[in-house]
């Protein structure tokens, strides 16, 4: 047996041992019932309509439709039905209500969506939380954030999209709301009875929305109605919606096919579009137009009735390489038949948007970032006879310059623009020039990705992650690694010493910051840190011995390191350290297994009593299940939180999350509000902050937002404001609370220092 073969044997054994210790307490009967009750099986013809792999789906469709038509013979077909529950419609012209929550993430100018409204104004959304209005005529821009109104918080909701309004302004598409913002007020706010994935405004000003699953609803200005005809493609996800010149909705999307092993296996994606003809859907796929082999990104409707569809990124196998050949394209439907326009394009086969200009010219944009391509932006122009292509050589963002692979073609009455992850570009003669932002962004968001926040004051913050250390001061962020020779050194823990000195621990050792620079006090890699009132620095973790703890003391000339005997009991690694009111060290440890150990450890809490560790099995009289240290107050009270379930799924949460305070002598236990998770923070004055992620059904719906505990009761200062859910991540010594969202792109928020808005 070769060394390599021997390694494979050992490796296989290690993987089996590694996963062999994983268990599950799932109740199969309960899960099966939950799934079957939610998605009951259909029988007869309908049962064969759900799966793309079925041999004769179209025949089944035809037979079913024929049966339906026969059953309905003599009666008028109804295009849609009014929903039984009328949605609440807030009054028109709702003025903005400032939340006074600041968005601290820097403005990048890298847009994740750009549209042109009916007045030719361009609207862009930044993933970091800003809605930007760019006026081409004046060349100026204005931005709004969650601080201007919680309504702008839809930026972070999973279904967020922006849709141009014909009368000017833009629709902000939240998960269940549509807000028409005209640049001053929300002219209309509409609640939808479904979770919206995409929306479009019809020529008559009415609205159409589609859920991700393909349920389509129409808003006529006063009520919602749901389209009959079912979902056009039940196994697919909707990625675009448009309304044609005749007022008919089109939706397009992606079918993710989990191929059975005996049919080739793997996961593949393909595209489709469906048109609703008043009572039923007509679906087109790759059998009708080859470009529909790729997932649909964009649908454009022309006044003459033609429809253009842009697709990109064909095939995403679960493993392995993407299929060779073109990855998308452009298809045109003239009302009767489809044409593959892909071949006429040069270099723009990964089309992410298609749009028609006022003069009928077709514009397509291509982010070209799929499957390892470099993300250069290209644009194609079709004047009815031939295509003209533009690329980086014509001034568009070059390889790796655009933060997003999607580009949006925006022909307006005042000129042609393209929105990109590097800004908005305008075609001037034969050259593209960046119209906004005027200057390059000083930094991008993604590398910041702050896993750890340390708040020094309301105006000073540190953010650390796997890509370095960042400093926010005087309204700006700068990269400030603890070792300038390693700008991307990983900082795994940050703490503020009682004297106000920031300390950091990470791959470059342990360092403190004084007089505007970092000084390394110990070179050994560390992952947890705390500083006692006597100035002793307690450090732990690292890359080799994950649970070891040591101290650093300054002897007048140098920092001396001294090991603390042994690991905390049941510790595999250290998650955090803290000092309580008596000066004792506490450790919050992680569970794990290693072959060198006699068995697995369960992790938990431990306290260093002099020279030995004591496991803490109870918090205030209750058994610890999954406790972590929250922090200490100014008076030395230490707060813990115990989350028995560790799941954001309400259905899987059986026990409440508890917080416990230890003042050096006694324990106080506080139950967190329903819907809270364990990511809570404590202010120096002892105020607790949690985030209520969902609301009990009995008290309404929606996110209740931050919850504040003042020692007697929980209050919800933003209840009903509709803030996007976030994690409360840090509290400054002055009491300022900071939040964080790390979904898609990281964002950091600063809450007002006093009471919330009315």
């Amino acid at each position: 047996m070769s060394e390599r073969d021997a390694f494979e044997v050992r490796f296989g054994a290690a993987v089996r041992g590694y996963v062999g210790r994983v268990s599950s307490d799932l109740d199969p009967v309960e899960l099966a019932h939950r799934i079957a009750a939610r998605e009951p099986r259909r029988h007869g013809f309908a049962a064969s309509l759900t799966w793309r792999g079925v041999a004769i789906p179209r025949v089944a469709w035809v037979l079913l439709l024929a049966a339906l038509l026969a059953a309905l013979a003599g009666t008028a077909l109804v295009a849609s039905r009014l929903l039984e529950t009328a949605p609440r419609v807030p009054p028109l012209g709702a003025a903005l209500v400032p939340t006074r929550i600041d968005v601290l993430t820097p403005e990048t100018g890298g847009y994740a969506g750009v549209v042109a409204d009916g007045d030719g104004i361009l609207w862009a959304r930044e993933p970091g939380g800003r809605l930007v209005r760019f006026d081409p005529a004046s060349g100026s821009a204005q931005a709004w954030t969650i601080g201007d109104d919680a309504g702008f918080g839809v930026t972070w909701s999973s279904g967020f999209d922006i849709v141009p309004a014909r009368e000017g302004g833009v629709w902000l598409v939240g998960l269940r709301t549509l807000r028409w913002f005209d640049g001053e007020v929300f002219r209309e706010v509409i609640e939808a009875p479904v979770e919206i994935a995409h929306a479009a405004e019809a020529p008559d000003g009415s609205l159409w929305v589609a859920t991700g699953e393909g349920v389509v609803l129409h808003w006529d200005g006063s009520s919602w109605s749901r389209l009959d005809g079912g979902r056009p493609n039940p196994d697919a996800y909707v990625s675009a919606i448009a309304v044609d010149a005749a007022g008919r909705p089109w939706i397009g999307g992606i079918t993710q096919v989990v191929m059975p092993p005996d049919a080739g296996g793997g996961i593949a994606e393909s595209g489709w579009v469906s048109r609703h003809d008043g009572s039923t859907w007509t679906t087109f796929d790759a059998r009708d137009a080859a470009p529909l082999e790729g997932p649909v990104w964009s649908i454009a409707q022309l006044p003459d009735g033609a429809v253009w569809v842009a697709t990109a990124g064909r095939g995403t196998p679960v493993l392995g390489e993407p299929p060779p050949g073109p990855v998308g394209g452009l298809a045109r439907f003239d009302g009767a038949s489809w044409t593959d326009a892909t071949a006429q394009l040069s270099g723009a086969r990964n089309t992410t948007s298609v749009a028609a200009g006022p003069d009928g010219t077709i514009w397509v944009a291509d982010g070209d970032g799929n499957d390892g391509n470099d993300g250069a932006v290209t644009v194609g122009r079709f004047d009815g006879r031939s295509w003209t292509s533009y690329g980086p050589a014509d001034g568009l963002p070059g390889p790796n310059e655009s933060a997003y692979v999607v580009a949006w073609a925006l022909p307006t009455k005042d000129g042609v623009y393209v929105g990109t992850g590097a800004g908005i570009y305008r075609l001037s003669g034969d050259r593209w020039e960046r119209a906004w932002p005027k200057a390059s962004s000083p930094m991008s968001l993604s590398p910041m990705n702050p896993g750890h926040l340390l708040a020094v004051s309301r105006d000073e913050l540190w953010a650390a992650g796997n890509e370095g250390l960042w400093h926010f001061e005087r309204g700006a962020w700068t990269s400030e690694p603890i070792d300038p020779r390693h700008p991307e050194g990983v900082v795994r823990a940050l703490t503020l010493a009682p004297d106000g000195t920031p300390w950091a621990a990470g791959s470059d050792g342990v360092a403190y910051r004084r007089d505007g620079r970092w000084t390394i006090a110990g070179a050994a890699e560390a992952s947890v840190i705390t500083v006692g009132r006597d100035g002793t620095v307690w450090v732990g973790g690292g890359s080799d011995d994950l649970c070891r703890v040591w101290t650093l003391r300054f002897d007048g000339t140098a920092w001396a390191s001294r090991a603390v005997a042994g690991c905390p009991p049941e510790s595999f690694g250290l998650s955090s350290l803290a000092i309580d009111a008596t000066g004792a060290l506490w450790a919050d440890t992680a569970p794990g297994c290693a072959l060198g150990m006699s068995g697995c450890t369960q992790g938990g809490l431990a306290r260093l009593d002099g020279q030995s560790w004591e496991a803490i099995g109870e918090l205030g009289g209750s058994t610890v299940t999954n406790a972590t240290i929250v922090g200490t107050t100014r008076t030395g009270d230490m707060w813990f939180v115990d989350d028995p379930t560790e799941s954001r799924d309400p259905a899987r949460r059986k026990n409440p999350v508890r917080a416990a305070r230890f003042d050096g002598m006694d324990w106080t236990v506080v139950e967190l509000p329903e819907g809270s998770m364990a990511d809570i923070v404590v202010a120096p004055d002892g105020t607790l902050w949690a985030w209520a992620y969902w609301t009990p059904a009995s008290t309404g719906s929606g996110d209740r937002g931050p919850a504040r505990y003042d020692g007697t009761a929980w209050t919800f200062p933003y209840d009903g404001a509709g803030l996007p859910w976030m994690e409360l991540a840090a509290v400054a010594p002055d009491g300022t609370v900071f939040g964080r969202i790390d979904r898609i792109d990281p964002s950091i928020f600063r809450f007002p220092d006093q009471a919330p808005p009315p």
Partner: protein
Amino acid sequence: MTSLALDSATIASTVERAIAGDELAFARIVGAYHLDLVRVAYVICGDEGLAEDAAQAAWWIAWRKLRSLRDPERLKPWLVAVAANEARKLVRREHRHGIVELKVGADPSTGAEPAGAIDHVDLANALRHLKPEDRALVALRYAADLDSSELAPVVGMSPSGVRTRLSRVLDRLRRELGDE
């Protein structure tokens, strides 16, 4: 939870009943394979909670797509591939840090470990350095125990392609784990 094995004949009839809408039959399939799905997902996620989420998401897909499985003998490879894909998507969506990712349940091995055995900490770290796609391949090969001919259809590659890809991954893991 303990997995309840199903023999070939039972699998075929159970799948058939589940396709017809028998939720107890579907529960039997869940009971038989859920742990396999969680373990495969765990190799990819490195987190028990995420692995459980991925496995449960896979069951929703399985319920919808089960009728596409024409050969019930291939049920397990198909199910674990779906779970691997869900785990891969979750990994891309979630943002996890630090050593707390390694969470395993109780079932301590108290015997002496063989010389040259791979430390689970090192293993977890090495896995984290792989692309999710490669982690999925490792999971399906070594946690679900699928051979290259079983892997090939579920990952959309040829058996030789699977072996080549695995070989590259193992070479990288050897370097990561200091075995060279």
